[in-house]
């Protein structure tokens, strides 16, 4: 089956969620990939949304982080304070699944401003739950479309820390979680290099060239010694994703937001 680069991105991200993992899900692309994982390879993945649902099993993608169906299909719904206090800070999250407006070579995330904080060129929505998810989840996955505007050499603002300045930054900061272990884009998969913790390309999606990846990255992106070719989406994965998107469009009268 033919497929789009966005479908490849979502499928590649979904494959990273092992069955049974407890996943704190951001809205938009992370939510789409996490639900695809639940509907395909990882039926027992536990999806936690910051509004309060634990073990949500929505039939359509939520438009907002607190859609009613998340509550109706959850194992339990707890207050938002409890989500952050007992479940995230308490050390019970295996994977924090985040989107971003901008990311740098160490997986640090900006969702606050482009330009100067006090005189911003673009005011972005802000932190939400991401800083503490990035700090406390045992691992973090980041999913976003790749472009030189989004993959920048230097962030204007670090909203949520990844590997900081690289090396043993996280350890020095006293962060409990291991930080980002993968950035999944529409072109490739990046993983942190041992030691430096700089993200390097470890898998290139079929049909994508190294030149495309270099052009869509604002820093001098490096490639691992052994770069894989990402396995194409299977028919099962594509049909599940397209069904999910069709059900979502029918339910909401629009595509789910990427905000």
């Amino acid at each position, binding site marked *: 089956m033919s497929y789009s680069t966005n479908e490849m991105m979502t499928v590649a991200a979904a494959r990273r969620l092992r069955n049974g993992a407890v996943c704190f899900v951001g809205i938009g692309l992370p939510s789409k990939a996490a639900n695809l994982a639940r509907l395909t390879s990882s039926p027992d993945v536990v999806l936690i949304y910051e509004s309060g649902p634990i073990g949500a099993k929505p039939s359509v993608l939520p438009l907002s982080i607190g859609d009613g169906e998340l509550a109706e299909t959850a194992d339990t719904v707890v207050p938002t304070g409890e989500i952050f206090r007992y479940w995230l800070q308490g050390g019970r999250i295996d994977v924090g699944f985040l989107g971003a407006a901008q990311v740098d070579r160490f997986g640090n995330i900006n969702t606050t401003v482009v330009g100067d904080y006090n005189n911003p060129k673009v005011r972005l929505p802000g932190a939400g739950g*991401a*800083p503490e998810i990035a700090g406390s989840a045992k691992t973090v996955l980041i999913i976003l479309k790749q472009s030189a505007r989004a993959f920048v050499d230097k962030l204007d603002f670090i909203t949520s820390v990844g590997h900081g300045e690289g090396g043993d930054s996280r350890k020095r900061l006293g962060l409990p979680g291991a930080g980002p272990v993968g950035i999944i884009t529409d072109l490739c998969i990046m993983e942190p290099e041992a030691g430096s913790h700089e993200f390097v390309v470890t898998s290139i999606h079929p049909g994508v060239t190294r030149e495309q990846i270099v052009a869509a990255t604002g820093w001098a992106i490096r490639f691992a010694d052994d770069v894989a070719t990402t396995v194409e989406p299977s028919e099962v994965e594509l049909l599940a994703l397209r069904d999910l998107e069709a059900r979502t469009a029918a339910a909401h009268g629009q595509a789910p937001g990427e905000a």
Partner: protein
Amino acid sequence: MAEILSLHDAVKQFVNDGDSIALEGFTHLIPTAAGHEIIRQGKQDLTLVRMTPDLIYDQLIGAGCARKLIFSWGGNPGVGSLHRLRDAVEKQWPHAMEIEEHSHADLANAYVAGASGLPFAVLRAYAGSDLPKVNPLIKSVTCPFTGEVLAAVPSVRPDVTIIHAQKADRKGNVLLWGILGVQKEAALAAKRCIVTVEEIVDDLNAPMNACVLPTWALTAVCLVPGGAHPSYAHGYYERDNRFYQAWDPIARNRETFTAWIDEYIRGTTDFTAFKAKLASASEAAQ
């Protein structure tokens, strides 16, 4: 004991110019009607507190009610930007507005601390983030037992909290369910608390352990069916996703926004009149 009042009277009596005010509701049960009434009554210089400003604060900010915004995520969920919030921050329209920015975990903890009568909240947060550099109220504290350095943030203790809930009984006890967000904490953190409800019943029939706010912990209860629209009230109506989309072009420029506020909010006497006007406009568009 909470008084059962009209929303007009509750806002008139308990919301003052210059107050700090929290209108909470995490996607669910957002007290939209109360936000409208504050605009209608022309309240000024408010410090607005809310984790997710949403359309309700976009309206209050654009209408010139806000002096300061305390928040942790300011977008139109599933749609994009809050244009009035951005215009105030980026171009000081309709006037300059101070912002005090936190993360969700921080504000959620700050409400818990406020409800607990504590001056600050402690949490493991912000290491490696630039937010403490732009918000001097984010400080740190060293654990006296382990030596761990943790984030310390001031508790949120608003002059007034307003929330929306499904039911109240005739004494003013309130029952809410579904996604609860930080509403209970926000209600108990405030000096005064107004609750708008979908219906007032003889008996709440609340299950054991249900989220019930006792009447003696509240200030006023107002019957406002539909008062959370375009957000939703679980068991009553669904989220009006089309309104969230329709808001984007309305809020995108100052003229269309002001015309909308003048016609739909300042040009209506109360939420019932607003709903009727919105329904007739929607019929005319079909």
